[in-house]
């Protein structure tokens, strides 16, 4: 074992993932070689995971300001104003690498980490979501990963008592060796109770609070910044172990300490544990720190400084308070049976000095550690992009409709999410209204008594499109999320993102990242939804194969009234159906194209964000008219999937559906095409005139496309000709049970 104070070597630096160039830079600045413990600090803080060195220069393009922004990127979570003196704090984060190595703990600690990011801001968490991307059914490990991840998320969130209300689950072979687990949490906070992570006030005390430190997760941040190989599955000890019970205590103790005025600043110990929290807090304040590592509560003996600094043991916080408040702060944590110990003080001089057993083991300038040099990564479009755009439209056209419909319906992704969703407590907190795991979830904010305020949450990304055209993919992922909120009647107010990509040292992957960021920027600018927080996960490659670019968007919407909500289900057998938006849509990048040609293909058409803006306003106005209670955003699988989902979720039985494609229209484009914005609504036929007028006021196409009935069959017509029919109950049974296989 190497001693903490042993002077490092270039070879050791390389082993710990610090490049030769970075090591030279560090030695030059320090005018000496860092010791082993210090090198550990650089290895974590210079990792992609902590430094964002590849992505940061591009992320600066994001729109991050707006009238509602109370806190933009750079803190533990972003915060938007929701009126009446309250804000919503939210963030999304990835836990991809740990979840592949150990699905249950990886996913559980992902939830734990994002919960802490939110309550660190002073906010009480009220809702969680997740976005999961798994390999396909041909991958033997897929069922075990799905089961482990879902159980990990459920066991953690359910115990802490934060409802899991929405999510996206996507199966695709590009995730066979690298599943994605992205966790989102939102909390609510009063403006004057927002806490930040800045270690200011010379002489103030640094308090360690929460669970004890062990050897688990040492070097997790570095692991998350490397490509995977099959052998890496043996790296289990680097995965953190979560304890949701301790998290719940930490949540209550932290909020109680904050409300009692005992906290000046606070940061959760996430990736790179004590190292990142201490250096980042000092960096934000322009101060220095002195810490006595012997004081850290430990659950194993003989931890070295290297291990103490890099441990990613869960459920820990670093708190700044004044000397006279330490005793009261410790008492609050002890009330909740947690440890809280003063471990250091804030100093001037912008250096962090740490001792262990009376020996100085770390003496580093804050900025050298906290502000690593950025990487200027070259990027260029993939050579084979144009080939992927080729799609034999004629071949598709002449194929029998029955086969095309079955191709889409048999897609593993066309399934009822309930086998997963019901394993999460979606109602704890007494806020959740109506359906969850649908377009968007809606929660009332019962803390605000002066007026009705509800928040809507959704996650969205279309990786298939992001692969074919990352800029349009980024744009459409944002627009799609906005439409998910709009169909519930919510005003989209801001986003968080989780940018999951492959190895940024590959110029083609880097190009995908740059393009997707441009697309997100365009859409967020046009839709007035600033980016207030986010996370980047790179090196999602296994054995040299990158995942599809997956810029996941978590979006928050606001509803400022108590009017009823529309849901994506038929509520009567006597409704008329209309499609608002373009009736025909392109097949490039659609589910049908992928399923039919057994490869993701076609050239996606650019989304017109002006029309999306008008469609959002239309949906919001429509809810206020109370002319309909059924609206669904048309996305993957086109009108076919959207209309069937509304029939399957109907709260009347038996339900029949008759879709009539107007004569002269292309059946494939109407039924399977995917473009934005397209909304399927169902209403009492007498309301058609008013709804059509509303659509025309927003300059949106409106087409009647059928009706519901009590016939118990799904029928597609063109003009008077019957093109296809199926039994609702039979189709629904297949859809409802598809994901049950993972949990038997």
């Amino acid at each position, binding site marked *: 074992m190497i001693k903490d104070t042993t002077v490092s070597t270039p070879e050791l630096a390389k082993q710990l993932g610090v490049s030769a160039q970075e090591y030279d830079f560090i030695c030059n600045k320090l005018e000496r070689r860092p010791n082993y413990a210090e090198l550990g600090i650089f290895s974590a803080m210079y990792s992609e995971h902590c430094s964002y060195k590849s992505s940061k220069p591009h992320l600066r393009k994001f729109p991050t300001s707006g009238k509602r922004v109370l806190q933009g990127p750079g803190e533990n979570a972003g915060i938007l104003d929701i009126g009446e003196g309250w804000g919503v704090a939210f963030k999304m984060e990835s836990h991809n690498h740990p979840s592949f190595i150990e699905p249950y703990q990886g996913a559980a600690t992902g939830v734990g980490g994002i919960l802490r990011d939110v309550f660190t801001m002073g906010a009480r968490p009220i809702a969680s979501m997740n976005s999961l991307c798994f390999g396909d059914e041909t991958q033997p490990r897929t069922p075990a990963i799905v089961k482990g991840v879902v*159980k990990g998320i*459920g*066991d953690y969130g*359910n*115990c*802490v*008592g934060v409802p899991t209300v929405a999510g996206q689950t996507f199966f695709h072979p590009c995730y066979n060796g690298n599943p994605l687990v992205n966790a989102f949490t939102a909390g609510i906070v009063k403006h004057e109770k927002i806490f930040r992570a800045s270690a200011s006030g010379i002489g103030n005390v640094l308090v360690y609070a929460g669970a004890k430190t062990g050897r688990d997760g040492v070097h997790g941040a570095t692991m998350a910044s490397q490509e995977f190989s099959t052998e890496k599955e043996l790296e289990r000890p680097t995965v953190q172990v979560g*304890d*949701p*019970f*301790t998290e*719940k*205590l930490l949540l209550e103790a932290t909020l109680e300490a904050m409300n009692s005025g005992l906290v000046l600043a606070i940061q959760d110990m996430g990736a790179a544990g004590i190292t990142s929290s201490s250096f980042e807090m000092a960096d934000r304040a322009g101060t220095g720190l002195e810490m006595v590592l012997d004081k850290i509560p430990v659950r194993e003996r003989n931890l070295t400084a290297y291990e103490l600094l890099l441990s990613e043991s869960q459920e820990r916080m670093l708190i700044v308070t004044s000397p006279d408040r330490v005793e009261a702060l410790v008492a609050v944590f002890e009330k*909740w*049976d947690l440890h809280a110990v003063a471990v250091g003080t804030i100093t001037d001089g912008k250096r962090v000095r740490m001792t262990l057993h009376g020996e100085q083991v770390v003496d580093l300038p804050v900025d050298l550690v906290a502000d690593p040099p950025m990487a200027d990564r070259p990027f260029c479009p993939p050579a084979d992009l144009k080939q992927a755009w080729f799609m034999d439209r004629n071949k598709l056209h002449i194929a029998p409709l029955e086969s095309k419909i079955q191709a889409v319906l048999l897609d593993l992704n066309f399934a009822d999410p*309930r086998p997963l*969703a*019901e*394993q*999460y*407590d*979606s*109602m*704890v*907190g*007494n*806020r*959740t*209204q109506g359906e969850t795991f649908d377009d968007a979830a809606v929660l*009332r904010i*019962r803390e605000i008594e002066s007026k009705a305020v509800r928040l809507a949450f959704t996650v969205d990304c279309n990786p298939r499109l992001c692969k074919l055209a990352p800029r349009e993919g980024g744009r459409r992922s944002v627009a799609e999320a906005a439409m998910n909120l709009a169909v519930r009647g919510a005003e989209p107010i801001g986003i968080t993102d989780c940018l999951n990509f492959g190895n940024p040292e590959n110029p083609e992957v880097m190009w995908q990242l740059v393009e997707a960021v441009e697309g997100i920027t365009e859409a967020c600018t046009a839709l007035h939804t600033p980016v207030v927080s986010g996370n980047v996960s790179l090196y999602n490659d296994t054995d040299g194969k990158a995942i599809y670019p997956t810029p996941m968007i978590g979006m928050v919407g606001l509803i400022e009234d108590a009017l009823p909500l529309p849901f994506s289900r038929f509520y009567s057998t006597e409704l008329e159906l209309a499609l608002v938006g373009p009736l025909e849509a392109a097949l490039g990048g659609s589910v049908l194209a992928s399923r039919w040609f057994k490869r993701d293909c076609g050239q996606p058409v650019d989304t017109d964000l002006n029309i999306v803006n008008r469609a959002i306003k239309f949906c919001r106005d429509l809810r206020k008219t109370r002319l309909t209670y059924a609206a669904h955003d048309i996305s993957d699988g086109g009108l076919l999937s959207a209309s069937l989902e509304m029939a399957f979720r109907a709260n009347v039985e038996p339900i029949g559906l008759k879709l009539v494609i107007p004569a002269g229209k292309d059946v494939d484009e109407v039924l399977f095409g995917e473009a934005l914005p397209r909304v399927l609504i169902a209403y009492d036929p007498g309301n058609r005139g008013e709804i059509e007028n509303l659509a025309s006021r927003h300059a949106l196409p409106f087409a009647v496309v059928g009706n519901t009935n009590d016939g118990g069959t799904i029928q597609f017509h063109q003009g008077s000709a019957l093109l296809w029919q199926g039994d609702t109950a039979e189709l629904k049974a297949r859809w409802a049970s598809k994901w049950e296989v993972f*949990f038997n």
Partner: protein
Amino acid sequence: MKAAVITFPGSNCDDDAVFTLQHTLELNVDRLWHKEAKDLGEYNLVVVPGGFSYGDYLRCGAVASHSPIMGSVKQYAAHGGLTLGICNGFQVLCESGLLPGALIRNLTTNFICRDVTLRVTANNNPWTNQLKIGDELTLPIAHSEGRYIIEEPAYAEMKEKEQIVLSYVSNPNGSLFDISGVCNEAKNVFGLMPHPERSSDLRTRHGMGIWQSFLNWSAKQK
């Protein structure tokens, strides 16, 4: 009227219960801390809420049943005090011996959160007296250990004494005899797995049937 809601470490439906009692029923509500035993004689209702008390380590509700506050609840219940256990609270009451039977892992072994339909099977008690036998309520469940078990002779006796208060119409967790809520012989202690506090001023609002029964009963006692 005055109610109390207990908070154990790991309780997570205590806030929801407090909100419902305070805002929907307009009661005065005190929060009780698990470490502090006290005389509960002043309360018309004591709620043992849902959650994961003490992390559900050992057995659900087992550690909580030995907490100082549960000593107070036992005394209060012995004197006829109305005591309601919801979800984890039901488990705590069973572990404390205040209710018969036990709750074990769901037959599917998974956590289940969904709205379920319940049938009222007894109403001669403080908890369902405003409902009719055979009435159906739709309330949410959210648990992984809600499978109620009881020995057959004890069940026959409970049925005879009208202690089986609520039954699942479509059994989600494998509970014996479809049982979802039971009371003690004196009927002042009631436990159920579904969450009436989550469906009182929100969702189906069927939780109100239980609260109104309690209010009606308590008003008559005066």
